[in-house]
């Protein structure tokens, strides 16, 4: 073990960070999740160096080659090739870029807009709150994937519309959480003290209240991130998301579907990577919730 530095004093940011880390790392699942996510982020980031082939390159001499552990498999194509001779492993690696970056954008958009609307609703109450919560109720009345599909139909299928549609569907959860947290914090002494010392609305909302409402929002962000990966893949699978030949995981599944009987690998691996990524994010989310939200702790 490394030499232990002087323990941080309670109440400081370093102390909070240390106590968060000790809670978070107490869960083995959360750590495994975190490590997996970091790895897949690195792979996505360095895709051109990591991937053995160009994801769009079609090797006409190697159509539907099985994975390497089969007798007919080849070390050139570790996870086999698809129907037009593209390397599945490389496509999965490049696909990580799409899935992760679109989902990250979804979370940023819906979290940003959700926090803003939730702060407005919780801080000002009155008619602003009524309008915002009613609109969110309407969004929640539609099954998420259906609303996303409807929005994509309006915006025309593609990467950007899929992103906007899924962000829209996720919005109500952030609005509700922020609003509830703001209402809970609003009348606490530190907020009143800040107001009495002359802080304006914006300062109270963003500097005083928001940092104290972040814990549930961070947990929700991880949940949203995994839901976004699933929804993006579902839209891609239905042909309404990222369009082929882009190596998006859901679209890859849709393309491989007709070769289900003859080339199981073309179907199995894209789905497996979706499942693993979502599972690991959820594991990490559970750990985050235990560490950040004392009320939910160790239940």
């Amino acid at each position: 073990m490394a030499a232990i530095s002087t323990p941080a004093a309670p109440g400081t940011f370093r102390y909070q960070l240390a106590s968060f880390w000790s809670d978070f790392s107490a869960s083995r699942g959360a750590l495994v999740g975190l490590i997996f996510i970091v790895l897949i982020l690195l792979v996505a980031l360095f895709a051109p160096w990591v991937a053995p082939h160009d994801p769009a390159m079609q090797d006409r001499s190697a159509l539907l080659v099985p994975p390497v552990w089969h007798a007919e498999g080849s070390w050139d194509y570790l996870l086999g090739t698809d129907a037009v001779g593209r390397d599945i492993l490389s496509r999965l690696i490049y696909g990580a870029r799409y899935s992760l970056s679109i989902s990250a954008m979804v979370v940023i958009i819906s979290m940003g807009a959700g926090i803003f609307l939730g702060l407005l609703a919780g801080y000002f109450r009155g008619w602003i709150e009524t309008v915002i919560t009613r609109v969110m109720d309407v969004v929640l009345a539609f099954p998420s994937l259906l609303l996303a599909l409807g929005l994509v139909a309006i915006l025309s299928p593609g990467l950007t519309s899929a992103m906007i549609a899924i962000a829209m569907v996720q919005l109500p959860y952030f609005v509700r959480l922020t609003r509830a947290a703001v209402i809970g914090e609003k009348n606490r002494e530190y907020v009143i003290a800040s107001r009495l010392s002359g802080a304006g609305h914006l300062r109270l909302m963003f500097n005083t209240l928001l940092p104290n409402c972040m814990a549930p929002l961070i947990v929700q962000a991880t949940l949203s991130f995994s839901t976004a990966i699933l929804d993006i893949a579902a839209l891609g699978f239905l042909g309404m998301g990222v369009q082929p030949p882009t190596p998006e995981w859901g679209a890859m599944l849709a393309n491989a579907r007709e070769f289900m009987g003859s080339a199981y690998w073309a179907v199995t691996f894209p789905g497996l990577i979706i499942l693993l990524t979502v599972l690991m994010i959820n594991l990490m989310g559970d750990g985050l919730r235990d560490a950040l939200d004392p009320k939910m702790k160790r239940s």
Partner: protein
Amino acid sequence: MFKFLLVKLAQLVPTFIGVTIVAFAFIRLLPGDPILLMAGERGISAERYAELKAQMGFDRSLVAQYFDFLKGLLHGDLGNSLVTHSPVMDEFMSRFPATLELSLFALAFAVIIGLPAGVLAAVKRGKTLDHTVMGVSLTGYSMPIFWWGLLLIMLFSSTLGWTPVSGRISFMYFIEPVTGFMTIDSLLAGDWGAFLSSLHYLILPAIVLGTIPLAVIARQTRSSMLEVLGEDYVRTARAKGLSSFRVIMVHTLRNALISVVTVIGLQVGLLLAGAILTETIFSWPGIGKWMIDAISRRDYPSVQGGLVLIAFIVMIVNLLVDIAYGVINPRIRH
């Protein structure tokens, strides 16, 4: 109780209006002129265009058009499909039983497995069984169900040949639709072969659609069981010398069920979203597949009608869940 009901109903009204506005706006927000869209590739003469515009009310103010739409809606008139030219309402109603049947079987699957699994996990807290149940349910919760469906088809249909790949019943049987539920209709017709065939076709789609609800129910059951197990009255029951089976089944489970029932009810929106994917994979002739087809064929009146009707169903089920929650948990009513 009556007051509670009225309040809940009143809260629903703005959402109802909001849903109709969203659905109304849907067709108007589409890129392009709806009449030109409906005319398709052939184009349309200027006179016919003006005639259609007047006929469909597009020449009137948006507010007037909205009230026309609302009036039609309240009379059950959602316009006609651009593809089949039959009323959207009829199209929806003829397919809805298929989705309902699939969803009910999926929910039954989820409850029958998820509930006992959650109870066992709570009772064996911290043991291997608990970790296994929680691990499996987290995996189920993270499952891309469109892939799960394909995997099960590859295994059970293609490789083992145990289950059919798509459809609702073998083509050898023709059952006159009475309720629209293939299982009930075949029983009504007294045809055992058809009944078994319909079950055979149901099993794989129901498992696929039920997977995520199963995971949610198992997790919720476990956590509310653990909560109730810590209550004083459970300790009292144990102290009275009741058998631990009785303590768990009667004193704990009954109270834990309150929140589980709510969660089960809230799965309906999830089931309808999942039905879109499941029905696409299994070519199940329900509203999910119908909506996807409508979207890809640009049959906008059908998409619009489907959006409204599905949102209504979700709202009504949520209302029923709220009421059921009030009935089984009197603390909530006040």
